[in-house]
Structure formats: structure tokens, C-alpha cells
């Protein structure tokens, strides 16, 4: 019997190595796998590369992981927020590397990783600082930038419902990066608000099929902070 549901956070975090590339779902605080980030903090892996749209805010979650000095490098599109002071301080002190990526290129690089596409050409960022040092080619009359796939060793994602095969649904704008990150990592770990019986999810409504999911842990925390 396939059962991807794990009972403890320690079990969920097994095998995340030092130096891992960790994809973190969420856009702002919506759809962010807060409990899994806390689990990663507890688990202890260090020298991480984190891929996330934002660079954490306040003092919890990703901001805490950064403050503990566990992240060597962050890949994101929008590290600035009114309360992203942990990241800002580390960045100014030269204690963290930043790779800034346009948001659509970030999503597409992970989609490519999940689909076996090694690299692609896109017009986004042509002629800007974010294309410096990258191969440029004119394709169909448009100048394009070569971008490489961005695979993860681990993806930490948040879902709304999950069954024991790892089929997932999401909640409104909490979907965001989670499904694409699920496809792009060798090990995908989901926290889910609701665990349902196999067969309870409408097959037409499954957003992430269990083939992309390795472990699920039940975290019924309620609503994200407003």
C-alpha cells in the first residue's frame, strides 16, 4: 500500500543534506509552508541554497532560517518588503549571496526542471542588468536570453487537501509557486491542512498528482496571518 503520509516532522525532514538546494513555496505569507520551514530549522541542515519568491519577513520562518546563518545563497525575484530586515542586514554585510531572477523566469526555470527541459530562451530581461553575462540569441526576430533550468534537491510546499498517494489541492492564491516547485525537486515534502481518504478528491480537481510528491504531513494550522 502506498502511504506517503508521515506522522512526525523529524520523519518528514529525513535526508535533507547540508548544501541542499531548497525550493520554498508561497507568495508573501499565503501558501508558505511555515511548519516545514520550522522543521528544517530544527533538522539542522546548513549551507543551503533557498529558492523562494521573497526573502522572508518579520523574524519567523525563512527570516529565522536566514538569521541562524543556515543559508549561503538565495534565489528570488523580490527580496524587498517592509519587514525583510533580516535579509537586508545579511545582504549589506555580505553574508548572503543573492541571485535576482525575474518572477516569470523563476517560475519557468522550475517548470523546465520539472519537465526535463535543460534550458530555454526568453525575451524577458534582454538588455537589462539581469541578462549580463548570459548568452543572447535572436530568435524569430526577438532578442532572447538563455536561462537554465532550476532543479531543487528538496521542495517544501503547502497544500490544502492531500490523500495518501500525495495527490494535492490548494487554497485560492495559496497555490502560487507550490505546484511548479513540486515538479522540480528530487524530494518533495508537502504540509497539508486536510488529509482525506484516497478517492475523496475529485480527479478533475487534483492540481498536483502524487507522482510529484514524496511525503505529506498533516498541519491543520488554519488561516494565514492577514
Amino acid at each position, binding site marked *: 500500500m502506498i502511504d506517503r503520509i508521515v506522522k512526525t516532522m523529524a520523519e518528514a525532514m529525513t535526508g535533507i543534506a547540508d548544501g541542499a538546494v531548497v525550493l520554498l513555496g508561497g*507568495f*508573501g505569507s*499565503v501558501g508558505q509552508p511555515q511548519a516545514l520551514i520550522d522543521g528544517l530549522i530544527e533538522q539542522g541542515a546548513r549551507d543551503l541554497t533557498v529558492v523562494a*519568491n521573497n*526573502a522572508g519577513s518579520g523574524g519567523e520562518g525563512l527570516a529565522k532560517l536566514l538569521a541562524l546563518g543556515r543559508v549561503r545563497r538565495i534565489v528570488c*525575484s*523580490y*527580496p*524587498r518588503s517592509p519587514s525583510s530586515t533580516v*535579509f*537586508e542586514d545579511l*545582504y*549589506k554585510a555580505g553574508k548572503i549571496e*543573492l541571485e*535576482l*531572477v*525575474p*518572477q*516569470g*523566469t523563476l*517560475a*519557468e526555470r*522550475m*517548470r523546465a526542471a520539472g519537465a526535463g527541459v535543460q534550458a530555454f530562451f*526568453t*525575451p*524577458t*530581461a*534582454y*538588455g*537589462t*542588468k*539581469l541578462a549580463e553575462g548570459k548568452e543572447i540569441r535572436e530568435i524569430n526576430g526577438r532578442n532572447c536570453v538563455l536561462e537554465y533550468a532550476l532543479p531543487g534537491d528538496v521542495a517544501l510546499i503547502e497544500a490544502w487537501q492531500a490523500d495518501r498517494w500525495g495527490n494535492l489541492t*490548494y*487554497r*485560492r*492564491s*495559496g*497555490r*502560487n*509557486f*507550490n*505546484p*511548479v516547485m513540486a515538479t522540480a525537486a528530487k524530494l518533495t515534502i508537502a504540509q497539508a491542512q486536510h488529509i482525506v481518504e484516497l478517492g475523496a478528491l475529485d480527479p478533475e480537481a487534483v*492540481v498536483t498528482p502524487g507522482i510529484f510528491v514524496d511525503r505529506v504531513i498533516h498541519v491543520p494550522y488554519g*488561516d*494565514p*496571518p*492577514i
Partner: protein
Amino acid sequence: MADSTLSTFTPLDRNGMAARLARDVPEGWYVNLGIGIPTLVADHVPLDREVIFHSENGVLGMGPAPAKEAIDPWLINAGKQLVTLRTGGCYVHHADSFAMIRGGHLDLCVLGAYQVAENGDIANWATSENDTAPAVGGAMDLAVGAKRLWVVMEHQTKDGRPRLVNHLSYPPTALGAVKRVYTNLAVLDVEARGFVVRDIVPGLSLAELQARSEAKLHLPA
């Protein structure tokens, strides 16, 4: 205004600029609005004109801010403000959301900017080399991906420098991308010959508008 002329005119305020732009958005368009003044555009499109707003965090058919009793903490826009979903709207994941943007499926994107050059280059994401950590979000994808890019911005900086320039002095977001600019003083198309004035606030002359612009302004052919 420290003008030597006798003319009197009233620049549009932020809502006035948004309302002016909203007049030109027809029913049926799929539209992405950037943060700031562009977000206000939605408030000026009447609900019976079916314009479908897209938010890059995966909301297609975004509606206005919710009433207090209808707040849903799972539903935010790209500016991380609480929003609603119109009847007929849906949710998609980030890669599909940006496929809508990058694949040319949006009819219009409206962005704010620091500068627009007469060849349509836009600067809207970074002002200097090393102030704070840079942040770009979806601006570069939106600028090159949508079918048309309109900019809404003040005609001049707070200290009176022109934003319609010959060449960008700030780092570009995209090259040759802007099709039209709405400012607090005028509406201008970006054509092969440069900025073409379509509309000026009442009481302001073309010469006075030119004096507030670095790039040469043209009259419609």
C-alpha cells in the same frame, strides 16, 4: 507652479490619472495592473464593463478589495493586498500565470515607471547601483510579454526633472516596450518618431508640456 506664463491648469491627481487611463480600456481585455497608481485603474472600470484583471500570483478575474465581513486571508494580489474573485474568475499556479504574461495572452499591462525614453525603453525597478538589495518581481516579464504596455506616472520627478527622456539614466526594465504613457499632464503614444501627444490637461500648452519633458514631443500626423 513657478510659471512665467499666465496659463492656469490643474494636473490630474493619482485617481484622475487612473480614471483617464481606465476610459481607454475596452470590454473583453485581459489586464495586469502594477503596484501603485496602476492598481487604482481597476476602481475606475465600471463592473458592467467586463474587463478581466490578472494578478501574477495566480488570480485571473480579480475583483476589488473585500468588505470587512468578506475578508478571505487566502486571497491576495501581487501587492499582497486582500482582494476578491469575480464570478467567472479562477486560480492558476505561478508558471501558468506567467505563461499568460510571457506568452502574449494579456491585452494590456499597466506599470508605473521612473523614466520612459522616446524609443519606448522603460526603467521602473532600480534607481541606483547599490542602495539596498535589488528587487524586480514580475516587471521584466510583464514589460515584454503583454500585447501592449502602458505606463502611468507623474510627468516630472518631485524635484522637477523630466521623466520623458531621450535616453534612460536608470537601469532598464525592458527595451522598446512602452506603447503609451499617461501622466498627470498628458497622454502620449510612443511611435517610431518618438512621443506623440494625444491629450493635454485643459489650460496647458504644448510648449509648456515640452518644457517639462526632455524628449522631443510631436503632434499627431
